[in-house]
C-alpha cells in the first residue's frame, strides 16, 4: 500500500527567509504524481506545486520549488522569500496513475503547520 509521511508536525520561518518542508513516500509503482497542497484556516485545499515521477527536472512555481529524489522516495518543498500569507498547513500527496487518465486515489501525508514570523 502507498503511504506518505511528513515527519515535521510544525515548522516556523522568519519572513523573507527560506524554509524546507520534508516528505517521504512509499510505493512500488513507477508512474505517479506528487503534489504539495496548502490549507489555510479557510479549509480549502489549494494546489501549490505538482511533480511528475517520470520527469527528472524539479518543478518550480515562483517562490515554491521541490527537491524530488525518486530513488530515495523523497519530495521536499522549498519556500523562498517567505511571506505572512504562506502561513498554513501544508500537505504532501501522492496519486498513482491507472492506465489512461487520472483515476487514482490521492493519498495525503499528516501535514506540516507552517508559521511565518514577522
Amino acid at each position, binding site marked *: 500500500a502507498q503511504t*506518505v509521511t511528513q515527519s515535521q508536525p510544525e515548522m516556523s520561518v522568519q519572513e523573507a527567509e527560506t524554509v524546507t518542508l520534508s516528505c517521504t513516500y512509499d510505493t512500488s509503482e513507477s508512474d505517479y*504524481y506528487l*503534489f504539495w*497542497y496548502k490549507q489555510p484556516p*479557510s*479549509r*480549502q*485545499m*489549494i*494546489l501549490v506545486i*505538482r511533480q*511528475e515521477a517520470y520527469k527528472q527536472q524539479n518543478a518550480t512555481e515562483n517562490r515554491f520549488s521541490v527537491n524530488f529524489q525518486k530513488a530515495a522516495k523523497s519530495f521536499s518543498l522549498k519556500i523562498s522569500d517567505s511571506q505572512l500569507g504562506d502561513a498554513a498547513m501544508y*500537505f504532501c*500527496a501522492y*496519486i498513482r*496513475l491507472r492506465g*489512461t*487518465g*487520472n*483515476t487514482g*486515489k*490521492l*493519498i*495525503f*501525508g*499528516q*501535514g506540516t503547520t507552517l508559521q511565518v514570523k514577522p
Partner: protein
Amino acid sequence: EAGVAQSPRYKIIEKRQSVAFWCNPISGHATLYWYQQILGQGPKLLIQFQNNGVVDDSQLPKDRFSAERLKGVDSTLKIQPAKLEDSAVYLCASSRRDISGSPLHFGNGTRLTVT
C-alpha cells in the same frame, strides 16, 4: 471557472442523528471524491466516483455512511446515525479524467460537530 461548491459550511448535530452534505463539482469534471479530515490529520478518502459509478469506497463505513452521485454531476454524502468520532471536516473534490495527473480541486468543506 466556478470552483467546487459545498454546503452547508457548518453543521452541529447530536449523536444518533442523521446529516447530509451536498457537493457540486466543477463543470466537466468526471471524477468526484469525498474526503474526511479529522482535526490535525491529513484527509482520508471515503469514496471516489467516476461519472455516476463508484471507483473506490473501501474506506467508507458502509453501516452508517452512504453516498450517491445522481446523473454524474452533484453528489450527496449521508451519515446515519452519527457518532462522536464522525466529527471532522468533509471535503469534496473533483478532477478531469481525461488529463493524466490533473490535480484535484477542492471545495471549502463542511465542518461537522457531533455532540
